[in-house]
Structure formats: C-alpha cells, structure tokens
C-alpha cells in the first residue's frame, strides 16, 4: 500500500504524461506481482464491489473529526472528492502501513459481508493508522472512482515499458473479464493461453474530430464516407458458437441486448464486428434518449424490448474466419463485410433481419457534396459523418490521420441563468455550475431546461461568479437561485422529447457557447423554439 500511495502521490504531483508513465513503469518494476495485478485492476476500473456505503462513511468521518455532519457535507461539497475530504478532516496521523495493497483489497472483499459495527471499527482503525496519502488512497479504494489522470492507455504504455511486452498485445490482454482476486500477474500479463482469448475483444480504433478544412484531406475518392451514429460503440464476437458483446468502456454487455442472441446462428464462427448499438423504436433509428431507457438495466422486460428494440449498425469487421484481419485495408475489410451481409440477408428473411444492419457507405464526388450530406445528418438522427481512408488498417486507440469524425454543428439557443452551484473540486471556490431556463408559451414563466458547467473562460467564470454572489435570491444548501438577468447561448448536440425532464425535452451534451451580454432576458428563447428543433421524423 505504501508503494501504491506513493505512486498516487507522484502521479498527482505532475501534469506531464511522460513523468506519469515513468512513475508507473518504475512502480511496475518495484511492486510485488500480486499488488501489480490489483493496481492494473484499479486503474482499469475493476475494483471489488464497494464494501461500505458512502452515507455511513461520511458520518463516521464526521464523528472522528469531531464536527457536525452538515459541516462535513459542506466541506465535501467544497473539496469535491469524498475520499479527499475524509483524508483531510480526520485527525492527522504520520504513521505508515506495511500491509500490501492486495491485502487491503482482500479485506474489502470480506468486509462487505460484515455488519456495520465491524465495518466501522475496521475503517476507523485504518484511518487513524495511515498517513495522509495512504488514508486518501484507502478511502478512495472503498468509495471507488479512481480518477487520477491515468487512462488505461497510459497505464498500458507504462506496463509495456516495465515488461517489454508490446503495448497492443498488453491492451488485448487487459481487455475482457478477469478477476484480480484470482488471476496471477503471470497469467494476466506474462503467459499466453489461447483459450483465454475466446471472449476477448480487440482494442477499438477511435477517431478524432476534424478541425481543419476537409479539403485538406486530399482526394475525396481516397475516402469512404459513412454516417456517424450516436449510440453505444460495441464489438460483437462470435467464436466457438458463443456470442460476446463488448461496449467501448470494455464492459461485457451481452446479456443486456437479447436481440443479438440470434447472431450465433446467423454469423459464422470466428467473426468479430465493430459497430454501434442503436435504438430502433417504430422501425427507425431513434435518439440517444430512447437508448437511455435500455442502458443501466440488467433485466429487460418484454414491454421495453418491444417498445425500444436495438439494432447493431456494423461499421467494420476485425476478425473473419478466425483470423485477425485488422491489418487489411479498410476497403478489403469492407468487401468481406459486404459478403457477410449478402450471406446474412440470404439466410435471414424473418422479421429480425433488421437487427444487423450494414453502415451505409455514401459515395460522393466532391468535398462540397460531403459537406451537403453532413448538413442533412440531423434529420436522420445521425451526428454527422465519419471519414475513413480507404487504405487504412484498423489501428489501436485514438489515432489521427486515417479516421476522422465530422460532426454537425451544435444546435444553439439563448437561455436565462436561474440557478448556480459551486463548482466541484477544480473550481470549488467559484459558482460555475449553472442551470438555464427558457420562457413558457405565454412568456410569463421561466422553465428549467438544461444544466451546463463548461464553455466560459476563467475570466468570465470569475465575472459571473461575482455577479451571482451579489444577485442571490435564495439559498438551497449549495444551490442559489439568482435574479433572472443574464442570458447565455447554450449549445447542444442532440435533442429529443423526454418524460424525465420537467421541460419535456432532453438535450445532449449542453454547454455554454457564450455569454450574451448584449441580450436582455426578454430576448431569450422559448420552450416552443426549442421544441421546433426536434427533428420532425420523431
């Protein structure tokens, strides 16, 4: 634990990627194998389930710090991170632990089954025996969500540096389902065993957004154009008569999408497809909001299945006839994919045929045509276009050059600032989390429609912050209502009707585009204006 806490401290104390990689690599060289496995698990979000709920943790911390619970909560709100708050408020100890990281995590697993009194004495004892960083890490491991600016990719690079195993191979090994409690470092990283690879997906190739003029990409004929869909990027694997569905977060989600079970019969063994899971209500592609009803549910009811079925829009094929074909060119892979679909459509004449769909390749003559096609994206619930170089191999991770996403410009609307909350952590001293409202039909009342907390410069945030402090109407805990006076232009990616929102409308990725200091609140838009932006097809 000592070594791991020091690693976290070092990672925390630098913003430079190469220093982070170095720190991780040197950790991977020094640490015990069993701790390494846990470190990899933690940094790839594979913690054991949370042994203690955070509500009781908060009250124990407040008790140990000898402060009332409300004061602990206020502190937490300002610090922004629960584990950090706890580590700060409980009495300081300069002791340090000799217990290995793996031991702590094994204790957490057994702790989950114990009663509250046992949990409490375990936690309190550790809080008072660990130094600040160990205390922070200990609590962080209990509460989960270790965000310390280390992506899986960065960790893989460091591991590669320490083990001298190729980065791509490591990325492949680390995917899928493995249990840090039972697997050894030898098995996870060092040894190669073919049967382990049955369910393993390939690392996704991800595109960057294009920032320059598309004409700079050269001859349009060298590029394939497809729609960009807003669903869940996924890999569908059929091997040895088994189906595995992986989402991009590297989660096995096979059971969540029973629609795909049929693929086992319809797609030959040794096939891996890359595509997007999309909602398909009423026989057409729906919005991300439709998909929300399916995400996060483990068991899917028949009604839901009938109301919001999903389909797989297939972009690419990575494995064919049991062979990794990622190093073939895009066009070669596409040819195989088209052949696969020909077979699929010949064999499958049933109503389920729609469940597997080939992503359309749009043939266009000029970049101007491409731009015109992009402008139409929103009408079909697409987010824009994907541009893929015909001779590109399927790479690992986010890479520039061969794949670009070219999204449609965001929708925008002018809204009134109505509530503000202090930023978390990063901006804990400023009011930077805002709620925005639009006028109702009669122009008499402002109705909340979105929250946004990014898009202004630091200087603007400061200015708005000081305005908020002077124009607070009421306080509700951390939230303040403010005099309706400031107008902001809000941008968002998508829009749909929603029963879960007070306004009846859900927007996707709302953010502040700019502060309209030139506008009075009477000039802000109405909910009706917003509704008019919803694509008419839906």
């Amino acid at each position, binding site marked *: 634990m000592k070594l791991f806490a020091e690693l976290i401290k070092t990672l925390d104390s630098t*913003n430079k990627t190469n220093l982070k990689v170095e720190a991780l690599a040197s950790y991977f060289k020094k640490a015990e194998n069993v701790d390494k496995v846990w470190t990899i698990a933690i940094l790839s979000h594979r913690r054991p389930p949370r042994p203690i709920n955070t509500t009781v943790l908060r009250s124990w911390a407040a008790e140990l710090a000898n402060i009332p619970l409300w004061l602990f909560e206020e502190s937490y709100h*300002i610090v922004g*991170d629960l584990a950090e708050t706890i580590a700060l408020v409980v009495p300081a100890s300069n002791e340090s632990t000799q217990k290995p990281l793996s031991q702590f995590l094994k204790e957490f697993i057994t702790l989950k089954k114990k009663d509250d009194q046992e949990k409490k004495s375990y936690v309190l004892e550790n809080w008072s025996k660990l130094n600040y960083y160990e205390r922070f890490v200990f609590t962080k491991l209990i509460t989960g969500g270790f965000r310390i600016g280390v992506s899986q990719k960065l960790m893989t690079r460091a591991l590669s540096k320490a083990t001298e195993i190729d980065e791509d191979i490591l990325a492949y090994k680390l995917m899928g389902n493995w249990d840090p409690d039972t697997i050894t470092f030898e098995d996870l990283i060092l040894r190669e065993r073919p049967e382990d690879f049955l369910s393993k997906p390939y690392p996704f190739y991800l595109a960057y957004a294009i920032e320059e003029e598309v004409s700079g990409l050269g001859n349009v004929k060298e590029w394939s154009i497809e729609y960009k869909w807003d669903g869940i990027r996924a890999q569908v694997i059929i091997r040895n008569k088994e189906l595995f569905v992986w989402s991009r977060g590297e989660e096995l989600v096979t059971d969540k999408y029973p629609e795909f079970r049929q693929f086992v019969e319809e797609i030959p063994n040794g096939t891996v497809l890359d595509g997007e899971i999309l909602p398909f209500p009423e026989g057409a592609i729906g919005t991300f909001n439709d998909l929300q009803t399916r995400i996060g549910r483990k068991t899917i009811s028949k009604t839901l299945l009938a109301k919001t079925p999903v389909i797989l829009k297939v972009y690419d094929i990575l494995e064919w006839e049991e062979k990794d074909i990622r190093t073939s060119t895009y066009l070669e892979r596409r040819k195989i994919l088209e052949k696969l679909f020909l077979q699929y459509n010949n064999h499958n004449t049933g109503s389920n045929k729609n469940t597997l769909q080939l992503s359309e390749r749009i043939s266009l003559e000029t970049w101007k045509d491409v731009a015109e096609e992009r402008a139409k994206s929103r009408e079909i619930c697409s987010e824009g276009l994907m541009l893929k170089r015909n001779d590109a191999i399927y790479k690992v991770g986010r890479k520039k050059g061969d794949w670009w996403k070219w999204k449609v410009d965001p929708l925008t609307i002018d809204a009134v600032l109505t509530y503000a909350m202090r930023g978390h*952590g*990063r901006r804990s001293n400023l009011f930077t989390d805002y709620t925005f409202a639009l006028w109702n039909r009669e122009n008499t009342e402002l109705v909340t429609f979105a929250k946004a907390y990014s898009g202004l410069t630091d200087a603007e945030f400061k200015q708005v912050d000081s305005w908020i402090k002077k124009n607070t109407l009421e306080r509700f805990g951390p939230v303040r209502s403010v005099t309706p006076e400031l107008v902001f232009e809000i941008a968002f990616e998508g829009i749909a009707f929603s029963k879960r929102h007070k306004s009846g409308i859900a927007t996707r990725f709302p953010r502040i585009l700019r502060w309209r200091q030139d506008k009075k609140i009477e000039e802000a838009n109405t909910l009706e204006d917003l509704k008019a932006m919803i694509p008419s097809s839906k």
Partner: protein
Amino acid sequence: MLTPLLVFNENGIYCEAADVYIDPWRPVNKAIISHSHADHSRWGHKQYITHHTNIPIIKHRLGEINVSGKSYDETFTINNVKFSLHPAGHIIGSSQIRVEHKGEVWVFTGDYKIEDDGISQVFEPVKCHTFITECTFGLPPFKWEPQELVFNNINTWWDTNKSEGKTSVLFGYSLGKAQRLLKHLDSSIGKIYTHGAIENMTEVIRPMIDLPDTTLITKETKKTDLLGHIVLAPPSAHGSTWIRKMVPYVTASASGWMTFRGARRRRAIDKGFVLSDHCDWQGLLTAIKATEAHKIICTHGYTDIFSRYLREQGYDARTEKTQYEGELTDSEVDKADGGKS
C-alpha cells in the same frame, strides 16, 4: 439601542463615535489600516494610521500618503475612543485593531495567523467583547503543518531539482509570502533569484529583518546562470513569457489553497506546498476562544459555514459583507501582483 461601536457601511468598517474607518474600501478622511495587502489598504484616504513598521511598505504600495505610525500596545485616543494596534502575525507590519469605548471592547483582526513565521511579530490574543475575524480558511479540511516541516519539504524539493539539473520556480505573493519563503530557504543549496516585484518589495523590508541575499533577474541574466538555483516569483508570473527564460524548470506554489489536490492541477503547477499566512480551521477556533469574546463577526472567507458552526458552539456569531476579496480569497495564487488577501 445605541449604534454599535463599529458598523459596516458602504465605505468600510466605521466607528461613528470617533468618526474613523478601519480598512475602508472607499476613500475616507481618516483610516486605520491593519496591513498593506491591497484589499485592506486602499488608495485615496486623507489620513492613514498604521503600525510604524508598515509605513515604508504602505508608502511603497501607495506612494506619498499622509500616514502616522503607532507601536504595538500604544493607546491613541480619537474623540474619547481608545484605539490600539496588536500583532496579527499575518505579514510584517500587520496589526489587529482594538477599539474601546465606554467599557466596550471590539477587536478587528484584519488578516492573521497564530503560528510564528519567523518574520512577523507573533499574533497576540486580545480580550474583547466583539471579535471581527476573517475566516479565509474557516473549514475543517484546512490544517497547517508546522512551517518547519513545510520548509524542509521546500528545500528538499529544491535540492532534488538541482540534482536533476533543473531550475526551481517558487510562486508566492510578493508581500509577505515571498519574504517568509526567502527567510527559510536554505541558501547553501544555491542562489536565490527574484522577480522584480518581489525584489522591490524585499528591498523595502530588508532594513527591518535579516534576509538572505537575492539576485534580481534582468535582461542580462543567462539561462545557464539559473540552472539548479531557485527563482522566487509572484503567482502572476506563471505562464508568462518571462518564465520561459528558466527552461528547464519545475514550478511550485506555496499557499493554503494547495490543500486541495485539484487546486494545484488546475493551475498546472508541478508541486504544491501548503503554507498560508492565514489561520487554519483550528487556528481560528483557538484564536476566538482566547479573546473570550461572545460576539463574533465573520468577514471574508467561508463566512456562512464558519459562523453557523460558531453559533452551534454557543457564540453569538454572524457574517458581515466586506470588500476584502469577496466571499472566497483565492488571491494568493490567482491575483496579479499588487493584489489582495
């Protein structure tokens, strides 16, 4: 009911009985000034009264002003109201201001800390009925370590950077923090270079305290001269073109805000040292208790939270709006030099 001895009006903290202001934020006739940070000592008053060690500093900041100096514990009377200054331990020349009239005693802290920093006159608790306190760090997560430990860490950091062939750039506010850092840097490790704003302020303070030698960075200073040495710079120099001269360098900031892991990251500073010229949570509570005051008025900082806690502890506590850097002071690291706190 009589008017309270001190009231908070649009100009500042006002004593009607004496017709005098304390740390006013708008120009007034007569002002008693706690210390020379810009939010407490503004330009434009007709007459300034402050501690005599603060006179060269306030003149450096505000130019030629009409100012008279007092010693600590020296009582001076204005219209039958007795005033005296008492050490606040915040920065050199900083005072608490005691006001007594008809047996009633109020104390205004200005900014203060209770730890002995080795350069400011150490904070002395003053008994009073009403205590007007800042609470910049009035929240339980703020806990300072003894400065000896912090300076050990700073010197170790410098030494490590030196062994890696890098220049250390340490940010600290030019009045107060910079001299405190300077006083405790281990000059056996290397030379101490300064930014102009810090050099000028330090020149003003040198006659009053013993400080290590510094070298001003000028156009003639070469990159290679700086390697392995330390540079003291105001926070505003972070990200400026001036600092590019130091490459290869590592940066650090010394401030109470460095308590938060996010605070350092968000400023893209390599290292944060938790070191403040304000009280931490426990420091505030200790100081308040020592005054034996029952009425507490909280000015700048986490005022709402802090006063609520005090009320629960049985104090008659409330907050007052001031213009001492708004609700939360992030100025030690954020504001351009010449700034506040």
